[in-house]
Each structure stands twice: as C-alpha cells, then as structure tokens.
C-alpha cells in the first residue's frame, strides 16, 4: 500500500519524503484546492522544486486541483492543470467534471485521481468517472464502513485510496454546505471550511464562547479543552438536550485496520492535514511508514505498537481518536 502524505509547504514536503512517504499531495496558493488558507500551499515558482525533491528521493507528487471552479475563476483552474502538466506531477487530484474534461483532452497522458470532494461512494459513480475521463484512482469519502470499503474494492473499476489518519469530516466530502450556511464560504465555493476570519472567542460568565460568523458554536467552562468552532463539532440543543449534535471533536485513526485495508486491496492510504505543521507531517509519516513496513514483514502477525498510538495521540486534534464510519456502530 502506498503512503500518501500531506504538505502545505516545502519544508513539510521534505519532511514527508524524508520520513518515508511514497507520495506527497500539495496544492497551489489559491482557491483551486480545498485547503485554501492564508500563508499555506505552494507558490507556482516553488512547484518545480517540490517535484524535483520528491522525484530525486523516488517519491511521487500529486497536485490537488480539487475544488469547483465558478465561471469568473475558470482560467485559474485550467492554468493549474497546465502548470501541473508542465512541472511533471505524477497525478492530479480533481473533483470537477469541467476540469477533468480539460485535463483529459489537453493532457491525455496525465494521470487523474478522483478527489474525495467528488463524493463518489459506489461503483457506478466510479465507472462514470473512469469511462468519461479515464481516472485511475479514487479517494473515498469518509462515510463507508469497512465492510462497504472491502466490497467496493472488490468490484471497483479503479484503484482506491482511503483516509487513514487526521481530522474527521463526518459529512460526505463535497456534499457539505454547513460552512457556507454559517459564513458564505465553503469547500466547494471557496476552497475552505469555516475560515478563521469568521471565528470569534469571547469570555462570558457562562464560560468561553466560540462563534462562527456570530453563531454560537460552543461554550467551554473554565479549564476544559476548547476546539475550533465548526458546525459539525459544535454543541447545540436538540430534543431537549445540549450535546455534540453531530460529532464530538475527535479525529480519525485507523492504525488497527491496516491489515484489513491491505487485505481488501486498498492501493493507498492517505494522511489528512495539509494545514498542519511540519512536525505533524514528519511524525505521522514516520509512524505510518513504520506500521506499513511492519505489516509488510510480519503479515498476519502484525500488531499495533503502543508507542505508535501514543505518538499519534500527541498530535491528534481533540483528545480522542475514532475509527469513524469504518466502524459501523459509530454511524
């Protein structure tokens, strides 16, 4: 299985490569990718350097062009495809049909991966993208159970990549407009979820309040752990109770599922977190490299080492980790 690591800048890309990533995925510094945060991602002039560093070390580099262009911005997306083809990226991660058509027409030899933002969760959807645009791999949304992933891997027309670790989207990626409902900005519209400019913190008599564009996301009594205010991790009132209506602030960790994912024929596992720092990228990549190597040599004798789990727990968002939708009772 290929280990696909995130990088939000050149030092992170180097950290990923140096710590054993088989592939690194990055984005350009604009809204053509779904982590369009200030100060993050690659200037066009830095892309060649990124590709060179990875290729010299024998690693691949993918460019995420995985948001949905609107008419006014269309040429930014086609330009990103042109630049990627020129810079020698190993694959483009794409979500929009118009962008796929452009890439497939102009650069038929350029490998296309279907982004998780395209929300393909079943074989017929995958067949459509495979037949129309020749996509070679698809990243699955974090909504399928392990059993469903296994079944899909058995009859998928393309290779599958799944999320293994990182913050947890509990909604189908590409099909969530909670952020724009609160702020007007969303992954599909603007390449970002719940942007920081809409976040406000205020100390009140009932505790520290977090707001997203004025909407109260949570109240934290003194001394409790706070989380970034997004609707899916907020605490609200429903059916007469105040609780995490959608999900607790947990993150995904599937280390214990690794043998099953391998057995299912999953071709690549993906680490989330282009927005995280270089230390995160280095540490997560190192642990998952060690785990994949152990799986390779030990096969059925593979067990999750305690120090791996502790190492990952230290850099997880929120205090707890979960298997998410892979584990049916979570649903």
């Amino acid at each position, binding site marked *: 299985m290929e280990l696909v690591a995130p990088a939000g800048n050149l030092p992170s890309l180097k950290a990923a490569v140096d710590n054993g990533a088989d592939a690194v995925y990055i984005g350009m510094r604009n809204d053509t990718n779904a982590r369009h945060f200030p100060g993050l991602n690659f200037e066009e002039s830095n892309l060649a350097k990124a590709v060179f560093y990875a290729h010299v070390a024998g690693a691949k580099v993918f460019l995420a062009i995985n948001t*949905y262009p*609107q*008419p006014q911005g269309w040429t930014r997306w086609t330009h990103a495809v042109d630049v990627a083809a020129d810079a020698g990226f190993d694959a483009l991660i794409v979500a*929009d049909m118009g962008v796929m058509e452009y890439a497939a027409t102009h650069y038929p030899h350029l490998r296309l991966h279907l982004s998780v933002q395209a929300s393909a*969760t079943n074989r017929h959807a995958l067949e459509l993208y495979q037949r129309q645009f020749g996509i070679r791999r698809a990243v699955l949304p974090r909504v*399928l159970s392990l059993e469903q992933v296994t079944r899909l891997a058995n009859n998928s027309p393309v290779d599958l990549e799944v999320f293994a670790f990182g913050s947890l989207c509990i909604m189908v990626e590409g099909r969530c407009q909670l952020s724009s409902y609160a702020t007007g900005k969303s992954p599909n519209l603007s390449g970002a979820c719940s942007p920081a400019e809409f976040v406000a913190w205020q100390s009140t008599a009932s505790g520290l309040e977090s707001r997203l564009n004025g909407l109260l*996301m949570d109240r934290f009594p003194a001394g409790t752990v706070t989380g970034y205010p997004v609707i899916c991790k907020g605490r*609200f009132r*429903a059916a007469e109770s105040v609780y995490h*209506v959608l999900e607790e602030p947990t993150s995904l960790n599937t280390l214990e599922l690794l043998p099953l994912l391998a057995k299912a024929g999953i071709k690549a596992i993906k680490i989330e977190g282009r927005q995280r720092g270089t230390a995160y990228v280095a540490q997560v990549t190192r642990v998952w490299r060690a785990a994949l190597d152990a799986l390779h040599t030990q096969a059925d004798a593979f067990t999750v080492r305690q120090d791996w789990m502790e190492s990952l727990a230290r850099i997880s968002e929120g205090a707890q980790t979960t298997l998410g939708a892979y584990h049916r009772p979570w649903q």
Partner: protein
Amino acid sequence: MPAMKISLGPVLYYWPRDTLFDFYAQVAGWPVDCIYLGETVCSKRRALRTSEWIDLAREISKSGKQVVLSTLTLIEAESELSTVARLCDNGDLLVEANDMAAVHLLNEKHLPFTTGPAINIYNSRSLNYLQRLGLIRWTPPVELPRTTLAEILKEADELGFGKRIETEIFAFGHMPLAYSARCFTARANNLPKDGCEFECLKYPDGLPVYTQDNQRLLTLNGIQSQSGQVLNLIPEWKDMQDLGVRLLRISPQSQHMQEIIEHTHAALRQGVTPDLSAFIEGDGCNGYWFGQAGHMQLESGRTTP
C-alpha cells in the same frame, strides 16, 4: 419569455405510508406543473416500496402533470444501487439523478435525466458535459449565488447548449446542506443507525437544532442535515424568470402546503410578489442567493452584494 412553472420536490422527511398517499391524492388537484417522487435520503425508509413509488408516479402522471422519479443521494450499498437501477429502468418516466451512479446508469441507457441540488455543478463546462450525457434540467446546489448562476447561463448560451436545458431553483423549504454516514436523528435519541427504530417518523418536518443561545441553527433529517431556517426565494421569481430559470421548486413540509402553492401560483399569474411569511416559522432565509451566508435573511430585490 416562457411562464415560470412550479415544481413540488420529493418529500425529504419520513412520512408514513398513509400520509404519503393522502398527500399525493391532494397534490393531484394543486396548481403545480411538476412533481418529484421518491426517497432521496435514507434507504431504510420503506413507507413505499420502489414499485409502489413507480405506480404512484404513473397514477399521478395521468392528471397531466409532469412526474419525475427522484433517486437516493448517498449510495453506499449494492442494494441501494439496485433500487436506483430499478427506478432508472422504469420504462417511461423521467428520472432525477441525485448521485453520479444514477447519471451513469441513465447515460448507459441513453435516457434523458434531470439532476438535483446534490449534484455539484458550479460552472458551464461541467453543466455542458452532463448535458451531453443526457441532462435536460438541473437544480443548482443551494449555495450557488445568483451572480454565478447568471454567468453560467450566459456561458451556456455562448457555448450553444443553453436552449437544451432547463434551470430549476430550490426556492422554498428547509435546504438540504449535508449528508453523512451517521444518522443524527437516531443519535439524538441515543440509538445506533442499525437499530434506529425509525425515529424519523416522529419528526414530519425534521428535528430542530438550536444554538445554546436559542437561535434555530439546523434541522436534522436522518443522515441529512438541513438548514434551520426555511428558505424562501419565491419573492425573487421575476428576477429568476429574467435570468432564464424555468421552475421554482417547493420542498414539501407537513403544514400549509396547499396555501403556499396556491399563493405562489396566484402571484405568478398576477405578476406580483407573494407574501408567504404567514407559513414560515422564524425569519426565513435567502442569503445564498445574494452571495451571503445561507442563514441570513436579506431584503428582497437586493440583487448585488
């Protein structure tokens, strides 16, 4: 300029079998031009079997209204794909694709189709691509601003396919905002999805969610999260008509449906702006249309942010 039509969206909530039959018996007599039928949210809901949805659709189509079969949005299991395939194979009725799986099946059969708001079309190229695969009508994502829609439709004309498609706007009701593997209605009742006891039946208009300072935020509808506020874009209908929008979609709710549709119909005929505030709980919202946050309610007629 062709007259604006009214469509009735699929029932997004879990209504019992008899409620559905009663509802559609009334709908046949209402001034709607097009009716979408079918389960789009959760395959565990089986008030009507797939064959019964198709029979009901055929029955209603005898009234002369256009009937479209709507398909499931989040498709994870083979059994769900089979249901979608059966709807696509119905033989005569138009199908609304809410996932690319349905687009694929319909395209393979060389059948025309419509797309619902969960199909991500944000530009004229992807719209054109789907049009060549068989799309004859689309309902844009609810977050798409008016200005972007105007650009897309202008480019559709320039690219020469504008006349071959119809645009429908999700114009009234709680907006579908997100889909998950998790069932939030079951979670609210401390039940797992696999043992949900069909809790959705208790909430004919979904389960309301409030912030801790009592603002209505969301509406839980099984695995679907909807807006807390009711979207009302009907007052924008003249502007929409000028843009080339052909249908206004009204999403079914358990109360006041007949009044909402009759008021809208009368306003369209008389060329006036309907006042639907009496049928909306809370402030309503229309922010997306004006390029703002979806929950906001802006003054009608404000067409540029």
